[in-house]
């Protein structure tokens, strides 16, 4: 029996090597619908709708895809979603205006920005206890943590700057002036550069994280919100233009303008990098962009006023 069990396990392990990687799922915060819609990216179908109160907007997915943390600005709380069972398994309080959120690579610390203030809270997701209060610029919006867990970058919307914060000390090592009103901020996998979408200057700023300086700026469409990366290229949602601008990361020049749904906000590359997923707030749908052809290949319905501000793809 024991030998048979070991053999079966070996067969299963071998099979797993040959099975295709999971195509992933999109967890979309429907701010108007008070829900999170889960879309299977292989079948391109909605597979679950999870009720989440308080006008959910921001989201952070753990690297292993096991948990999603969702901010609800109207309820001043963060909800913890078990992505496998698709259930809310806990809440914790986040005072002020919780919108931007990020999770440490080990999943043990959540960073939540107070939109109304100048603080980022470091919270233990198990106990809900605030471990540290990190002071940054005015109206901190988007957040991201490097894969080594040692650096937090913050888009300080009303300070027109990026704060670069050492972890775990919470010391702001550098503040870099970028375009006007940076909202979303996205790190490359190595943590070398951070890219902000500068809402009021219609630009994307590229920041060298280690050096703490501005590398360059890309002119993009009207009212950019969030940047996604897929290796060689960046993509930014232009809210008032209802487009995505694709740009070259090496030369920082635009390469294409792609028409998507109306008022695009959240954007992220899928697990295999072949597609980008764009959450359209006004048209209540998800645009699927083929990264090779730089065109929309599918449009999928979502809930009311979806945003997904943050990392929302479960890998």
């Amino acid at each position: 029996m024991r030998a048979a069990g070991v053999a079966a396990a070996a067969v299963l392990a071998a099979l797993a090597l040959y099975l295709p990687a999971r195509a992933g799922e999109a967890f979309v915060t429907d701010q108007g619908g008070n829900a999170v819609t889960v879309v299977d990216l292989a079948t391109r179908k909605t597979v679950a709708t999870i009720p989440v109160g308080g006008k959910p907007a921001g989201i952070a997915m753990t690297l292993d895809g096991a948990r999603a943390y969702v901010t609800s600005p109207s309820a001043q709380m963060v909800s913890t979603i078990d992505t496998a069972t698709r259930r809310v398994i806990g809440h914790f309080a986040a005072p002020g205006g919780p919108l931007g959120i990020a999770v440490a690579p080990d999943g043990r610390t959540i960073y939540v920005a107070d939109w109304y203030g100048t603080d980022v809270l470091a919270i233990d997701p198990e106990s809900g206890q605030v471990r540290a209060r990190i002071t940054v610029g005015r109206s901190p919006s988007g957040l991201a943590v490097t894969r080594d867990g040692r650096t937090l970058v913050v888009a300080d919307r009303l300070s027109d700057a990026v704060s670069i914060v050492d972890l775990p000390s919470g010391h702001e090592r550098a503040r870099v002036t970028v375009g006007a009103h940076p909202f979303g901020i996205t790190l490359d996998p190595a943590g070398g550069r951070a890219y902000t979408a500068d809402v009021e200057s219609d630009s994307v700023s590229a920041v060298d994280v280690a050096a703490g300086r501005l590398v360059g700026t890309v002119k993009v469409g009207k009212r950019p919100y969030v940047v996604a990366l897929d290796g060689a290229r960046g993509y930014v949602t232009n809210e008032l233009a209802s487009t995505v601008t694709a740009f070259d990361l090496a030369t920082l020049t635009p390469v294409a303008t792609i028409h998507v749904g109306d008022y695009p906000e959240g954007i992220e590359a899928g697990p295999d990098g072949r597609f980008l997923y764009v959450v359209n707030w006004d048209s209540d749908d998800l645009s699927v962009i083929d990264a090779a052809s730089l065109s929309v290949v599918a449009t999928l319905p979502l809930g009311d006023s979806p945003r997904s501000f943050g990392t929302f793809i479960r890998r």
Partner: protein
Amino acid sequence: MMTRRRALAATTWLAGGLAAVLGAGTRPARAHGPTRQKLVLSVVVDATPDKVWAVIGNFHDLSWVPAVAKVEGPGGNDPNTAKRTVYLKSGGVWHDEELSDYDAREHTYGTFLPHVDVKVLPVADFSSHLDVTAEDGGKSKVAWHTAFYRGYPNNNPPPDLNEAAAIKAVTAICQPALDGLKARFAGHS
């Protein structure tokens, strides 16, 4: 509506770049709340899209909106240059409302209002799209899509500057205009 906007790409992209160049550093820092409101009001009128567009399709003509007394501004219907100042019959006024995109063939235009006094309209970051689409029987659907934040930028808004107040104020301008269009074309098909 999404497909209708696709035709507008090149112009809006250029307009965005130009606005960024011209406007860099000149805009005051603005704050708003974290939850944007979406309000879509629509009406079916007894006239073709061309006939409706002839009434509502000029960015500088809001004579079909009962709340508006007068509109002034340069640039015609060119998104690169058009701006309008809107005078309300109530005495309120807002300036520098931009034309974000315009397509007469598709019967659609979009607007963006960077700043308005909350005593005039209790909103922030107000944008809109007017869309006219054909319906069966020679009729049209006029849809007025609006997006805005409440007038109070910080936590715990007073009642006259909360989300409900913003929605009420926008509805009070848009709904009578749409009702007026319906009445205007009633029995004229």
